[in-house]
């Protein structure tokens, strides 16, 4: 359907179909992250399910910030962070700050990591996930003025690092097919 113009020069205005197609592809990373977040809250009846939400969100943000930062701009990260705070019953701002910092780290490291392949991006994610979980824990303790058990933060970090490859495989496929601006 869409006629692609690879050569520079004057191009015709994109039709509504093309425009919608492009917008949908650009919005895919954020939309799919939100969808995965909502999915983790479904009543599966698994003990400790609540930890899934921050763990999975972190992995999504890391993946898209690393491999497709143009479609995961800081305002989108902010919005997803706010959703994480509201859905995950964190004090407002905790999820937002944590995710923005993870996004910032991903942008810093992406030049190097994006070329190194999947294994290294996972390896780099382990300390990032640990740092993010610890930061959330510290902020929650600070904002609620209560010493919350650190065990949950450790569990979140471990779960996040373990789930990253599980998530990254379908996401990488989506990255190459659906989210690609001009599939070739």
């Amino acid at each position: 359907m869409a006629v692609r113009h690879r050569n520079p020069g004057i191009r015709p205005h994109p039709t509504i179909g093309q425009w919608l197609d492009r917008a949908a592809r650009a919005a895919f990373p954020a939309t799919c992250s939100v969808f995965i977040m909502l999915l983790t809250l479904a009543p599966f009846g698994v003990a400790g399910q609540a930890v899934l939400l921050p763990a999975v969100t972190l992995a999504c943000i890391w993946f898209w910030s690393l491999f497709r930062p143009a479609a995961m701009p800081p305002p989108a990260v902010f919005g997803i962070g706010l959703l994480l705070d509201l859905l995950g019953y964190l004090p407002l701002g905790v999820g937002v700050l944590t995710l923005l910092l993870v996004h910032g780290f991903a942008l810093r490291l992406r030049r190097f990591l994006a070329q190194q392949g999947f294994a290294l991006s996972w390896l780099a994610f382990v300390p990032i996930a640990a740092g993010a979980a610890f930061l959330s824990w510290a902020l929650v303790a600070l904002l609620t003025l209560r010493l919350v058990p650190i065990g949950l933060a450790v569990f979140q970090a471990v779960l996040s690092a373990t789930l990253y490859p599980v998530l990254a495989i379908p996401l990488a496929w989506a990255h190459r097919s659906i989210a690609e601006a001009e599939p070739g």
Partner: protein
Amino acid sequence: MIRLSIPARQALSKLTLPVLVVAAFGLMLLGKADTILAERARMALNDALGPIYAVLAEPLGAINSAVTETGQLWNLRAENVKLREENEYLRRWQTIALALDAENARLKASLNWIPDPTANFVTARVVADAGGVYARAALLAVGPNHAVRKGQIALDERGLIGRVTEVGSRTARVLLITDLNSRIPVTMETSRARAILVGTNGPRPRLLYWPEGVQPQEGERIVTSAEANAFPANLPVGTVRHSRSGVPEVEPFAMLTRLEIVRIFDYGLNGVAAPEAAARTTPGRH
């Protein structure tokens, strides 16, 4: 769309992240200053998502029970033997209980005992975990025209699970007795000593502040106390278990990790506002 020159656009894109990080700190301050704002946003979100999860709950519950049933098929025989033994034991108890019940009724009649008022209750389905990582709470689907109010008491078929802390138009949030912010006045059944049950976010809340000279006994039943007019007396809570370090903890009767159906009782009590509600009534706030 406004067209900007490439350097301007690059500068702007570099500036977005720091600005948003500052905004995140602003959001933290806002969340601290106005607790109602976050609560309202959460309940609005829950009201929107609640029906979706309620629809999902049934097929997912069916899958879950199918999985557990398959597991149970394995030890059907052992389970059967255990249940027979338990049945015998309970039959003996039933005769005792019936005799005691009749005696109790006779004694109450001769004392002109004023009976406790019966409480109204509604039954609701648990649709989601509403605690997040650092809290223990459950989200209930209560239907559009419900009469659920803050401070009402939630029980499952075995015992106390907690209190309603937030109410939306279709959903209600119940703070569980295991939550870090939960404080419940209780009575130890044999010694009749009062204590406070303090949530730790772990599976077993702790007992604190019992009077001097009394020691919580292992296996002793814990029931609610009517002190502070927040709970009616004698709702079953759990039994005392000492941790390895000798701290008395309470094993709840309620199956808090797999709540499905919950009853919400209206005892007409409003002595102590629920924890989240307490933040609302601080001076200087409406």
